[in-house]
């Protein structure tokens, strides 16, 4: 097992997609390490990480997946890695914060916030958005370890940004959400 691949698959959602894809990996002798999937507007997308024997190629895997009988063809993209990806850390770094953004729906909210993060060298670890009754809500998990400014200045800039863009923005430490949503303490 010395060849590591990252596989991304998109398809119209239906029962059996994960069984199909992981079956193709299994029959090529692959060892599945991790899988993440989500469904949006009836389309399923997943990203998998798996290891194979050195003689298995990307083309073998594409062929195996394309032979699966399905109404909606899988869109597949595969990347070979020189070494296995890092194991996910047991817990996020200490400087992990949750940013929430709420406001009336309009174009450019996600772009504006993500550009703000980019400009301050803030990495977005996770992001969820919902649109309900024309109210747009974003929750972002941010890694501030390499943030270009101090937290206090960041909070001030967010207040200005919120005012300018007519949004309600809050930033709170990730641990607040862990302790209020999980049974165990950090």
């Amino acid at each position, binding site marked *: 097992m010395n060849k590591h691949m990252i596989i991304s698959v998109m398809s119209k959602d239906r029962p059996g997609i994960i069984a199909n894809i992981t079956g193709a990996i299994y029959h090529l002798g692959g060892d599945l390490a991790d899988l993440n999937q989500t469904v949006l507007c009836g389309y399923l997308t997943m990203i998998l990480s798996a290891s194979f024997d050195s003689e298995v190629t990307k083309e073998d895997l594409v062929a195996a997946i394309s032979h699966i009988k399905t109404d909606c063809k899988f869109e597949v993209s595969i990347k070979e890695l020189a070494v296995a990806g890092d194991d996910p850390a047991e817990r996020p770094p200490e400087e992990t914060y949750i940013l*929430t953004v709420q406001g009336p729906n309009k174009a450019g909210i996600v772009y504006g916030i993500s550009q703000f993060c980019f400009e301050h060298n803030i990495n977005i670890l996770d992001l969820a958005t919902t649109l309900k009754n024309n109210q747009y809500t974003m*929750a972002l998990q941010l890694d501030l370890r390499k943030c270009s400014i101090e937290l206090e200045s960041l909070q001030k800039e967010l207040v200005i940004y919120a005012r300018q863009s007519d949004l309600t923005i*809050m930033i*709170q430490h990730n641990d*607040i959400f862990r*302790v*209020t949503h999980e049974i165990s*303490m950090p």
Partner: protein
Amino acid sequence: MLRSDQILATVEMIQKENLDVRTVTLGLNLLDCRGGNIDQTCDKIRNKILTYAGNFVATCEAMSSKYGIPVVNKRIAVTPIAFVGAGFNQDDFVRLAITLDEAATAVGVDILGGFSAQVEKGMTATDREFIASIPAALAATSKVCASINIATTQKGINMDAVAMMGKTIKDLAEMTADQGGFGAAKFVVFCNQPGDNPFMAGAIHGLEEAEAVLNVGVSGPGVIARSLERLIHNHPAPGTLQLDELAEEIKQTTFRVTRCGELIGRAVSLSLGIEFGVVDLSLAPTPTVGDSVGEIFKILGVDAIGAPGSTAILAMLNDAVKKGGIFASKTVGGLSGAFIPVMEDAMLAEAVGNGSLCLEKLEAMTCVCSVGLDMVAIPGSVDADTISAIIADEMAIGVVNCKTTAVRLIPVPGKEAGDYVSFGGLFGASPIMPIRNVGMSSRFIAWGGRMPAPVHSFKN
């Protein structure tokens, strides 16, 4: 995976519902500060407080900023000062109070508690000097709070001390008459006083405690009120929501509130290198609109606070708060329950004003809540013996029910029932509560001695 619904619930709790850590209280043992004379003792006390609490306020503020949750009060509680000042006289105790006040100001804390004594069974000569010093000590200081434990379930009630308390409270109010008797708001009389309570005016650092300990008081009546309103709003059809479900909502919300307090308390403790003590998960109202325990009564179904049903509601609220908090925190202590301080709660004060809440009903409610007759403004003309007798009743409730009870009455000089008094800030404002049967209890108070401990205290 991020759950934006959960995240928003917590964000609402902090942003709109007045979630805060009500107090981080640094408990400090001062027994080793006793010097050969009053000057040496004052120096040692000052040095110890400055050494231990020098970075305390800054650290609380740093953690508050890191987690985005306000820490409203930073306080110090010390060893009951009557122990520290054994052998000192009345004037010496006033000097100790002034030293504590100066040290509290120097380190920037809001209030300091522990100008206290424990006399539930008997009083030493020092205790008598200490009690005599209370009016002058509190009139001469701004940050010092005093308390005295005069009854326990184990030992019964010290009725000699009860008799002295009425006079002490009257003197205290008279000495601060220019502030509406505000001095009395800084003095509380206890039964079964806990040694790890972070809330004022009754915070002390009990003799059983370690050298220095951090205790946290979380609050959040506003958070509980809003979560109940949401639940009721989402169940509009009659019969779709019952009290057990409302109790469960209180429990779960308290869990989340307590967790925030525990997180910040432990972070401050780690940063200062001071042992973490307990979380006191009390619903402590403030005069701010939307931060009221009284409001919860109305949400839960009585149209007037003090109407029949109020005691039952308070019993359920107090119990649900304890259940949620006990699971949330590794170590729960202090008072832990619901407070009903009249002046500090705008809706309780309003209920006094419109006559729906009387002293007798308030007393009944204290049987099932976590403290007692707290921050009740009464006419300045009420005599000392009547005040002592009100205290005796409240002490009896605590002794028999094996619980903490306390009395903080303010006989407002020159004012009568229906007049209005305001202390401002967290101490709040209220109409003066009428007292019935004034002057009818003097023969009872004159007996003195001790009221024996109840039969169920003999468990050895």
